[in-house]
């Protein structure tokens, strides 16, 4: 099981390449990515006056206040579906511990020191669980912030705590988001193609996700 899910090809895979994400996975990822980006930018606009100009760019301050929670629900729905698709691949495997211990070598591109990884490496798994738990916290606090007028006066004392937690949690996701985008767009060429077109080169698969590569191809090298 450690190799991970095999993505069934939905389009023709070129020679010397393997399918990495099927259409549903890509679609949910990008709907989620667009929703998250909107939430991050509108959230930052309301979080700090330094970013308030974003509110005007994105349609006007009152408009973003109206849409932020609704887009949040779209984000939530896609997170839910991604979790259903990927939760098995996100489980810890024995190699993950050594991977995390050698994180420094990974960051310095000395990948020969890294243990073989399944469909997702230990870092991607950590990113996933951080985003999932943060989404849960953002949901609970976000609902309260959406309709504070329904809150009885006796419970108003939770409002400042709620806003604080919502902001702090969002900042954690932004830190994770920066690393995620940086890793995929700049550090591991081929990742964006994997998430847009669905397939990666066999070299890419073997190098980054050896256990998964061995499972889907049945090859040993």
């Amino acid at each position: 099981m450690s190799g991970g899910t095999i993505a069934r090809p939905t389009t023709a895979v070129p020679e010397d390449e393997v399918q990495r994400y099927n259409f549903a996975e890509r679609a949910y990822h990008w709907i989620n990515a667009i929703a998250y980006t909107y939430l991050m930018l509108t959230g930052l606009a309301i979080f700090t006056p330094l970013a308030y100009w974003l509110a005007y760019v994105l349609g006007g301050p009152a408009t973003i206040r109206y849409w932020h929670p609704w887009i949040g629900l779209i984000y939530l729905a896609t997170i839910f579906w991604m979790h259903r698709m990927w939760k098995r691949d996100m489980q810890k495997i024995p190699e993950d511990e050594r991977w995390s211990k050698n994180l420094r070598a990974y960051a310095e591109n000395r990948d020969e020191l890294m243990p073989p990884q399944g469909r997702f490496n230990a870092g991607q798994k950590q990113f996933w669980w951080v985003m999932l738990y943060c989404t849960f916290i953002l949901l609970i606090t976000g609902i309260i912030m959406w309709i504070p007028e329904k809150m009885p006066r006796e419970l108003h004392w939770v409002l400042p705590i709620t806003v604080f937690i919502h902001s702090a949690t969002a900042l954690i996701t932004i830190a994770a988001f920066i690393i995620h985008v940086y890793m995929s767009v700049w550090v591991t060429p081929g990742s964006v193609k994997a998430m847009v077109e669905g397939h990666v080169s066999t070299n890419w698969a073997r190098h980054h996700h050896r256990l998964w590569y061995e499972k889907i191809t049945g090859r040993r090298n």
Partner: protein
Amino acid sequence: MSNGNLEIKAISGHNGKSAGNGVSRDYDVCKLIDTTTCIGCKACEVACVEWNGYEFRETTFDNTYQTMPETAWNFWNLIKFNEVETDGGLQWLMRKDQCMHCEEPGCLIACPADGAIVQYTNGIVDFNQANCIGCQYCVTGCPFNIPKFNEATKKVYKCTLCSDRVGAGLEPACIKSCPTGCLHFGSKEDMKFEAEKRVKQLKSNGHDNAGVYNPGDPNGGSPGSIGGTHVIYVLGDARDPEKYGGLPAAPSVPFFVKAWKGPLKWLGGIGIMAGVFGVFMHYVRFGPKEVDKVEEVKR
């Protein structure tokens, strides 16, 4: 704004000194509410609704002399009524509830919208609905439960201390309507003086616990940390403001509002910029993992 900026310096053809010239004037304004002389007539409630041009909304009767449970988006001035038992007696406590116009306004601190809340140098804290985004963070920051949300317009409203009247040199509408003289309006200094005078009088009449409610004023205020208010009370029993319709004994801007608008905002902003710069420097130092090229060489 008061008409202090229209102070006369010279008058043509005028015999002698021009009136008021050379006399320093206090610029900040204050409303003094003497709860001991309030009879609960609600004239101020009516005057407020009328001046601000709202329809008189429906009231809630719950066996007291209070018009409704709390102020509303179109009802900014409410006489709170409380029945309190004393040693062998009964007291009816009336307190005019409205925005306190804090020197350190929690609403303004919490508000994210550029220009939605302004504080004038005369102390008036005013909402500008054109810039309000309806997030209700002001509700989160207010220790007095004053800002109220209108679900139709998605904006928040509250007492303006009649900034439009005060700007034209008039007293607020509630002051104008009060028949017992329990409401006073003037400079903060004068109102504090009047309040202390009244407290002294009350004490000499046997009301030993009388006092002024002016929370957090650095120049001798009651407990609290909001830097004083531009609405102050004379309370017959200042030991327990809570019994006057839930007046907080020591109001403050909530700790988490300050933590969020202070350290978290700065750490977050610096953190994001440092993060983006950090990954950029990582790329400059280590670059990408070029698997295709590298593996081909190995083979």
